[in-house]
């Protein structure tokens, strides 16, 4: 009988050290839906960061850009270049969409890697990057699907669907399948990468709390930046693809 409290203590200690939580969520009940509240909370933080940056960026524009303005203009130029190379000459109306995708994913990923979310304890689950949750990435990917359908239909009308029987009608099933695999691959790629990054860091931190996780954290920063870039580039490429070939 004497052994039991001791063993509980050891186990609790063990749990504290290797407290890796996967698939645990902090649920809010809204309407008939169960909402992953930790994703909402971190998304709001990311949105606040982005909107705050926007306010700072446009508050006091100068002819010769100050450091902050220079940085935001550089980001804008980067996004425009990206849209231009992927979409082509008519990239203008799509810059906001591509930019939103890129910035939201990028800031989400980096917030997961840089902000000390674990300081805040939730009743259940833990805070992490919004893109750490498959729901966020699926939503972003479906938005991309809707965007490229809209782009193609608004540009070509119903003749947009001709692309399904090109180059030969035999490829029709594959072409239709592509519309499903595109959002699937987009969302799973992003989700998997970010989840893996954060898991590796969490596991390493639980094993060796100091110094050892740092290179992996840098690697995570790099890959999450790349993932944001890939997502935005692919979204732009899909939009450009559905708009091209118009005569």
């Amino acid at each position, binding site marked *: 009988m004497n052994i*039991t409290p001791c*063993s*509980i203590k050891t*186990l*609790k200690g063990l*749990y*504290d050290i290797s*407290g890796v*939580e996967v698939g*645990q969520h902090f649920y809010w009940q809204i309407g008939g839906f169960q909402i992953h509240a930790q994703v909402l909370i971190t998304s709001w933080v990311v949105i606040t960061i982005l909107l705050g940056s926007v306010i700072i960026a446009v508050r006091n524009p100068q*002819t*010769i*850009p100050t*450091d902050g303005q*220079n*940085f935001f*203009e*550089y980001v804008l*130029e980067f996004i425009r270049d990206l849209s231009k190379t992927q979409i082509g000459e008519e990239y203008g109306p799509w810059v906001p969409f591509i930019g939103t995708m890129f910035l939201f994913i990028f800031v989400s990923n980096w917030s997961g*890697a*840089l*902000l*000390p979310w*674990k*300081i*805040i*304890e*939730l*009743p*259940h*689950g833990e805070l992490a990057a919004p893109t750490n949750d498959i729901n966020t990435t699926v939503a972003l990917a479906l938005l991309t699907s809707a965007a490229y359908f809209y782009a193609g239909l608004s540009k070509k009308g119903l003749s947009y669907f001709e692309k399904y029987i090109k180059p030969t009608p035999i490829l029709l099933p594959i072409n239709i399948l592509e519309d499903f695999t595109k959002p699937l691959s987009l969302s799973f790629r992003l989700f998997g990468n970010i989840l893996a990054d954060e898991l590796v*860091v969490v596991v390493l*931190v639980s094993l060796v*709390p*100091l*110094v050892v*996780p*740092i290179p992996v*954290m*840098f690697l995570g*920063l790099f890959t999450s930046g790349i993932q944001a870039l890939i997502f935005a580039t692919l979204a732009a490429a899909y939009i450009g693809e559905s708009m091209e070939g118009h005569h």
Partner: protein
Amino acid sequence: MKNVTHSFVFLAHWPFAGSFGLNTDILATNLINLTVVVGVLIFFGKGVYLLDNRKQRILSTIRNSEELRSGTLEQLEKARIRLQKVELEADEYRMNGYSEIEREKANLINATSISLEQLEKAMNQVRQRVFQQAVQGALGTLNSCLNTELHFRTIRANIGILGAIEWKR
């Protein structure tokens, strides 16, 4: 043993028991590593030349266009000055030209009237001489051709004409 199992169950449900709170465990929250990573990012982020290059490019573009602008303004000013000068000269020329023309006109009129007078004088002289020559020629002809009988006949014819005129009245 039962207790141990129970503790596992307890552990599995442990998060339900909590609520919002702060985790002050520095190691578990990974604070130190995060600080290092953020510090390194800021330290090396400041040294990124992309932004500096961009700023330099903007600056040089602005400077170039400023130079172009000031150069163009200078040229415009020069051209305006020249235009003024040319306009002044044109005014001068116009005034000079008018007075010259007036003078020329007066001279011309004078000269013409003088030559006109001379011409009239010469015409009068010519007319007088021609008249004199005609009278002399007529006198000569009369003197040479008029004998007495012809004289009488002429006188008689003239008297007849005069008489007819008188009779008609």
